[in-house]
């Protein structure tokens, strides 16, 4: 005589109950209809074909398709047998996969459609991150160390600066040809560094007074006297203009927070016992 309790502990019964439960979800997965029935539906064919195409760039032919279906049937049988035997519980790869899936589930709970108010507040708190850099438009006259050495070039630059400040026209100044010409329109620091080299030059241009000749400044090529024509300060864009990138950043951050929150909440439900530290007094 078999007791009711023993029946309830019977793994086969559990399996059958599970099978019955899954039966109701037949539409969800062919596998669930009957553990002993492997059904090859149109949906299965479509997914096999799509996966093949993704890997090899072409649709499988008729023969290849037959082979894919045979593989699918064999894989299903093996998989179900493995589940029956309880394989996978101790397998590191399976464990990682399950963990990954649970994490995905958690991330799915993150809000997908933040309101404009939420995004605007996020933007206000970090508007620096979205600002365009300051830019300067300038003219420059170049004095090369190839012409009279370092001291000679500096000397010529100083003389030219003094004359320009007294109102001498540019055409009367004997400067040296500069590879990128005399005129530079609205460059940011990075662009100035590309054209003139690293060092103090970009900062000196940024600090030079507007509509006046100043210098001499040393670039990676030699000495320059500079006239700043125009300057645009660093500019924070309007919320509407950068809404898309704010939304992407917000979603990234939200997702990370949800991940952390979910994990913390999950851990609350567990007793974590650190027997490894049991002999050491915890601070």
């Amino acid at each position, binding site marked *: 005589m078999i007791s009711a309790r023993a029946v309830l502990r019977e793994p086969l019964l559990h399996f059958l109950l599970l099978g019955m439960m899954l039966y109701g979800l037949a539409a969800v997965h062919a596998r669930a209809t009957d553990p002993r029935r492997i059904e090859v539906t149109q949906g299965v064919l479509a997914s096999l074909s799509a996966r093949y195409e993704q*890997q*090899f*760039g072409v649709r499988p032919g008729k023969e290849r398709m037959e082979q894919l279906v045979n593989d699918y049937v064999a894989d299903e049988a093996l998989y179900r047998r493995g589940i029956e035997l309880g394989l996978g519980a101790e397998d*590191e*790869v399976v464990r*990682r*996969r399950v963990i*990954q899936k649970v994490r995905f589930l958690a991330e799915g709970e993150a809000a997908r459609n933040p309101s404009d108010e939420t995004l605007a507040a996020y933007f206000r708190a970090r508007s620096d991150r979205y600002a*365009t850099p300051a*830019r300067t*438009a300038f003219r420059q006259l170049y004095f*090369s*160390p*190839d012409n009279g050495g*370092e001291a000679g070039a500096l000397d010529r630059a100083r003389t030219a600066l003094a004359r320009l400040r007294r109102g001498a026209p540019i055409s009367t100044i004997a400067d040296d*040809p500069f*590879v*990128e*010409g*005399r*005129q*530079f*329109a*609205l*460059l940011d620091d*990075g*662009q100035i*560094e*590309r*054209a*003139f*080299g*690293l*060092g103090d030059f970009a900062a000196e241009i940024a600090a030079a007074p507007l509509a006046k000749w100043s210098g001499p400044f040393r*670039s*990676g*090529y*030699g000495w320059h006297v500079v006239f700043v024509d125009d300057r*645009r300060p660093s*500019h924070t*864009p*309007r919320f509407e*203009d950068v809404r898309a990138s704010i939304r992407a950043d917000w979603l990234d951050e939200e997702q990370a927070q949800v991940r952390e929150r979910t994990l913390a909440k999950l851990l609350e439900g567990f007793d974590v016992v650190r027997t490894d530290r049991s002999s050491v007094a915890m601070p």
Partner: protein
Amino acid sequence: MFHPFPRGAVLCATPLLLSVLAACGDSPAESVPQASVAPVLAENPDRNAYFGELHLHTALSFDAYIMGARVGLDDAYRFARGDEINMMGRPIRRDVPLDFISVTDHAEQMGLGVAIGDPESEFSSTEYGQSVRRRLADGGNPFALMTELSSSPARGVRSASISAWQKSVEAANRYNDPGRFTTFIGYEWSSTPGNQNLHRNVIFRGDQAPFPFSSQDSPRPEDLWTYLEANRANGVESLAIPHNANASNGLMYDWLDSNHRPIDEAYAKRRLLNEPLSEIVQNKGQSETHPLLSPNDEFASFEIFDKLFGPEEKPSKLPGSYVRDAYGRGLVLERRTGFNPYKFGMAGGSDLHGGLSSSNEQSYGGSTTVPAARIDREQAKKSLGIMNDPQRTLPLFATGSPGLTGVWAETNTRQSIFDAMRRKETFATSGTRLKVRFFAGWDYDAIQPGKPGWVHQAYAKGTPMGGDMQVAGQGRHGLRFLVWALKDPNGANLDRAQIVKVWLDGETPRERVFDVALSGGRKVNSATGKAPSVGSTVDLETATYTNSIGAVQLTAGWEDPTFDPSQPAVYYLRVVEIPTPRWTTILAVREGLPIPQGTPATLQERAWSSPIWYLPGRMAGAGS
């Protein structure tokens, strides 16, 4: 002088610009800074110099992964374009951003290292993958594993590579930013028969590329060309760039094809079509020339790495392994067959395996995977040869800091830069951003390089680097070369500009180096044919130098005093900087360790232009 294309001028005329510069055409009331964005897609008909990397490995390269590289595609691109990234827990940024890049991971087992290392990867879920993981965990030799995987038909090996390639293509397309930062889809075909290097990097022009043809598909370059040609027929354009000819044992520029048959017209045509450039300088030495091949070239002994790859590091045969020799062979083959297979231009790269492309001496510390800024004292001792690395017989201090490719292109886009590579309007540098221009023409008497407007006239009346000069006809004057070189604004002054000439004397190639511009008013001694040394400002105690010698810019208009209109000849420009401390010296000073004795303490960084070919008796437009 007004810049031909002022940077601030916003060009809204063409549909191309309209589509990219969304700000164009907005109402004037729009916020002002949007409208002031520099016209990054404005085309300069006189062409700009862009500097880039055409040879970089990330963790997707199997050997890189084994050597400890973990930097992936995103950080590789972000670092190259100048973003700050996190490297080993601390931020790091490239000194100067690159203008363009191609990430060229090895096709062979691409992505397998990452797939094996990741317990969640599809590969790790296969029986074979798990066996591989177990063996590695039990201390199995990863390099032996690499060989095993190369011949394994196991399921999962190919699909891991397919997935890695998809990621590589996707990342290249995602980071391409026309006008600012150009990326090319690329990979490395790594054929090394008997440790003789035949490697090529394949660079794609557009946004699509089929699965790579690898050296496992075939180790013969001719078969790689078949792949390129088949793609081309399908509208997918690409080219292959050989590198490390110096380690090819003479095979890279051989007289024979892969079937050991003399090179014929068909081979020459295919090679020209598929391989317009050679990478002549990188981490494992330069392939311009060797002191034993060019005994009269006092600058030939530069970053020599004349060994084969592989654990034994046997000597690599010199003839056929260097481009100067190849240019001469090309002229001989042209005389014999009517076609020259070795009419290629110059490129440079890093070949670093750590995902972070660097090019200056400060950034390199003897490791292919870790930048100098993250090298600890133990690694520094290995790099400087103080501590032996049992893995290697050749010391790490024999490797060099990486090189760069310079291109002259209208704008920083895939199309413009790729087309420049195709027409060979490129130059290689040992890592410096030294710019060089080189033209030849029959009617150049009135043009003075460096004067405002000279470039425009030079293009109008002659041929830039990479081109052919046909026999005289229209011009009243002799063949004249225009030379211009400008220092790297963050680097050293220039010592001299030289024109290297290779010509055919009967069936024998000859070579000669002419000093065409010397800094500091030096003159060539007419008796010896040599110029005095520029000297040195290097202080080995502090690993520093000053720009108190040398020139910012060098220019020359030059006519070949040995010109013979009946002799075919190849001319290229080499511009040499004043001496600066080599990376070994910089690292030794930083760590307070001795400077290695087995390698020079200083070097003279340099740039090499693609050649200009003089072809007597050829009609304009004939040949290739």
